[in-house]
């Protein structure tokens, strides 16, 4: 099976300070890959580089056989990559409904929002509310909903559990798994919450100081005590 996303020797950083060094990984269609690692390991930087928010210094990113170098952020979503940034990326002055429509704006005809509201009944209840009136969990749902409205093939998800109650985190994780099973959506999931990430991931990639130190099946990472101690610290 050919990979959906192929990253080869990716190096990127801020100004003169490189953060990612020679990162290579692949995501297959319908695969959930968890990117794990400590603070400052470069997890968010990896996602930001993939979605084009941050230019790569060197390396190659191919998505579905197409080279993504030089493609603008706002075009990424047209290619089928949706990024939910850390800090939720919700437009707070627009309503829930407008935020969701924003996600699918470029598609013609515009995709219906009903499937999104079915996924997140909570958002349907609050569709007329402004972004800043939502709770943290609702905002996270909205950010994911907005990304899904674009009907992507790959979802880049940055710290969806940040600041959320464990129960809501579990809901979001279950939802991702369900989406993958039904639609074949691939997910690259950055998480601090290792247990919850590995509970739904197929594979785990461990980043440390900007390098990939290990890559295993999620089940292996959880079960193998040595690996867990060495890379995940529990």
């Amino acid at each position: 099976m050919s990979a959906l996303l192929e990253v080869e020797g990716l190096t990127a950083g801020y100004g003169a300070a490189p953060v990612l060094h020679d990162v290579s990984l692949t995501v297959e269609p319908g695969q959930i890959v968890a990117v794990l690692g400590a603070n400052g390991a470069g997890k968010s930087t990896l996602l930001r580089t993939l979605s084009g928010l941050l230019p790569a210094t060197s390396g190659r990113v191919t998505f579905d056989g197409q080279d993504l170098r030089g493609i603008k952020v706002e075009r990424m979503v047209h290619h089928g990559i949706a990024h939910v940034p850390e800090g939720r990326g919700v437009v707070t002055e627009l309503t829930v409904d407008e935020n969701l429509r924003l996600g699918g704006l470029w598609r013609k005809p515009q995709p219906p929002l009903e499937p999104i509201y079915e996924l997140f009944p909570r958002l349907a209840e609050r569709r007329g509310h402004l972004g800043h009136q939502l709770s943290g969990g609702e905002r996270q749902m909205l950010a994911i909903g907005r990304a899904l409205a674009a009907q992507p093939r790959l979802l880049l998800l940055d710290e969806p559990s940040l600041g959320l109650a464990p129960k809501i985190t579990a809901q979001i994780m279950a939802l991702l798994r369900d989406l993958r099973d039904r639609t074949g959506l691939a997910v690259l999931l950055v998480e601090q919450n290792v247990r919850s990430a590995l509970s739904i991931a197929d594979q785990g990639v461990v980043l440390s100081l900007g390098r990939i130190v290990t890559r295993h099946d999620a089940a292996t990472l959880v079960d193998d005590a040595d690996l867990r101690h060495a890379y995940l610290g529990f």
Partner: protein
Amino acid sequence: MTVVRDRVATRIASPPMRRRFSPLLVVMIGAAIVVALTYTLPPFRTYQLATVGAYLCVTAGLTVLTGLNGQLSLGHGALMATGAYTLALWQNKFNLLVVGIIVAILVTTAVGAVIGLAAARLRGPYLAGLTLAVAVVVPSITSTFDETFNSDQGLSVMLNPPPESMTNEQWQAWVCWGGALITVLALALLTRGRFGRDMRAVRDDETAARLAGISVARTQVAAFVVSAACAGLAGALFAVIAQSVSPGAFPLTLSLFLLMAIVIGGLGRLTGALIGAVLLVALPAVAHEIGEAAGSQRLEGNLALTFFGVVLVVVMLAAPGGLASLRPFKKKGHR
């Protein structure tokens, strides 16, 4: 609990659209009111009404740019000057008013596109700095190329006399409000749909907007161009009212006044732009009367600015959303 539910339910049932009337209807009612006023007001008041109309063109465009798209422009006075001088040069050569106004809008739009392209790369204070430079530079161009622009003296504008059935003031009011109402209608329709949502998304969170597939730079340039076109129209209308143009009519303080007016009126709302346009005419007039009563020439020139400052402070304390956000007939706390 049920009370809360009910309230939530009603809020969902009525989507939070600020404008509940069709813009076309509002504009037609506005036109009827203006026509009625031009037949009842004394000539000087009709002249002031015309000035409000001309100001409304530029404040409406500026409030879309600054309020909805979040770009601060201190250069709209200079864009008005561009439109005014274009109209003056055109009229003195061809004397075809309607075409002249369109040419003035086109030229100002082109200038606005150039500034907008630069502005889309700048943020906050840097953008203010760039547009400030425009506001300072444009009037001085008139003295650099004084053969064309006649330096500080300015140009007179050749105009055909108004139709015989109406006075000059009535005619001016009709022309200005025709332009203003078309502007308001166009902006209302434009900002309702996708363009308005794009602009607000870009203002609010550029990253979120880009990730949603909106080109930030394109949206910002488009907003600047639209707003510049409005300023060009306003400038041309001022040239028609004054029947002359000079750099002194478009100083830096004009740009500052415009900005203050839309903030006092209510940023991002077309009703706020209307309130701002009225204040731009009314406050200096009041200041003028007070200055005259006090018998001091020196007081008069500065009083208007003081007035605006005081009104700005008071309004910001009492109604941070501007005068347009006040809903006197509704209970507090219910938006």
